[in-house]
């Protein structure tokens, strides 16, 4: 067993984990932070994306022990201090960037990483960056719009249905 300590969403946490305990399981089962989802469990879908020392990481493919001493951010830490939605979360709501919501935590965390690296990404750059995040509902268009909007860029209104 390994004793680990880390800061999660600004709070010091500690625990004792097996070598094989994944970061996502430590977050969900030990800390009860169930906002981080497990979709594929094979590093492909991105539902489990969290931030480790400021970088996006798939928490299903990192050992909890590897995050010992790290600064970890999850979807639970994204809202503003007063509980209101962050700019990115509000944009996902406004632009209907989700349907079932399963991929959304990972999408929001990936989007936050993107906007930190590249505050005004083009539509192409957003799509490239979301390579590792799969959504089976939206077809991605509204997710891309939400991220464009969150970056303060113009978003074309939806086309009107033909009369």
């Amino acid at each position: 067993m390994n004793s680990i300590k880390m800061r999660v969403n600004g709070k010091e946490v500690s625990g004792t984990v097996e070598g094989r305990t994944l970061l996502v399981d430590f977050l969900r089962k030990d800390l009860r932070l169930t906002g981080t989802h497990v979709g594929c469990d094979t590093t492909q879908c991105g539902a489990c994306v969290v931030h480790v020392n400021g970088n996006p990481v798939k928490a299903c493919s990192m050992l909890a022990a590897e995050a010992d001493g790290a600064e970890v951010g999850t979807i639970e830490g994204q809202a503003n201090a007063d509980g209101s939605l962050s700019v990115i979360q509000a944009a996902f709501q406004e632009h209907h960037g989700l349907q079932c919501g399963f991929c959304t935590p990972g999408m929001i965390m990936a989007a936050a990483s993107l906007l930190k690296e590249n505050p005004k990404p083009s539509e192409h750059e957003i799509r490239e960056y979301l390579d590792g995040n799969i959504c089976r509902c939206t077809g991605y268009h509204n997710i891309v719009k939400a991220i464009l909007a969150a970056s303060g860029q113009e978003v074309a209104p939806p086309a009107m249905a033909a009369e």
Partner: protein
Amino acid sequence: MHNFEYVRPKTIDEAVSALSSDEAQPLSGGQTLMPTMKARLAAPEKLVSLTAIDEMKGVRMDGDQLWIGGGTTHATVARETADSYPALSSLAGRIGDPSVRSMGTIGGSIANNDPSACYPAGALGSGATIVTNTREIAADDFFQGMFMTALEEGEIVTAVKFPIPQKAIYQKFIQPASRFPLTAVFVAHFGDNVRVAVTGASGGGVFRWTEAEEALASNFTGDAVAGLSVSAEDMISDLHGSGEYRAHLTKVMTKRAVDALA
């Protein structure tokens, strides 16, 4: 995943000693190893993490060579070689997806030598030197076949040293589901010689297409490649593409690389 003992040494010496026991395996990012262990295709009794070893991290110039620590992530290489070696930066910045690039390392990729990985092409195409805890190995001698390298048991890739070509480019034809190359080619022009390394295509792993290198040394144009042919004999044939298709892609991607550089 079966359980294992986990250790996270701070120095190369400690890591080497931790790896000396049987059934110990290094962990250097884990973006291949974690899924492999979950599928129970690997079940080491002990994992020795190489991710807390500061002396194995970073990017710097060492004389006229670019030194990259074996534990340096793809994201860091992409960011920090953008000016010194743009072709390598571009290669690193297109591996997997952003989350994979936060974790995966150059040493891990090279030591694993996946037949479809990007870094083996960059290292072989550049004529890099693989530095381990005991010796330096030329890339030409290091890659020895699918998932096979010159590394001995317990030997660690501590750094990779790249000579910087006059111009170079990585042309990657991706398999869109996995983001691995279906076939990719790294072409480097050193003035007096040209190196062409191909990944994703051969069942023997990364290889140099020496015929193209010779043709390009005297005539660095896409036309010099047009007349050549690649044998499909040793090429990987799977549901994503036949051996003939990969042989054809080898030529097409080499020509595109040269056209882009010429």
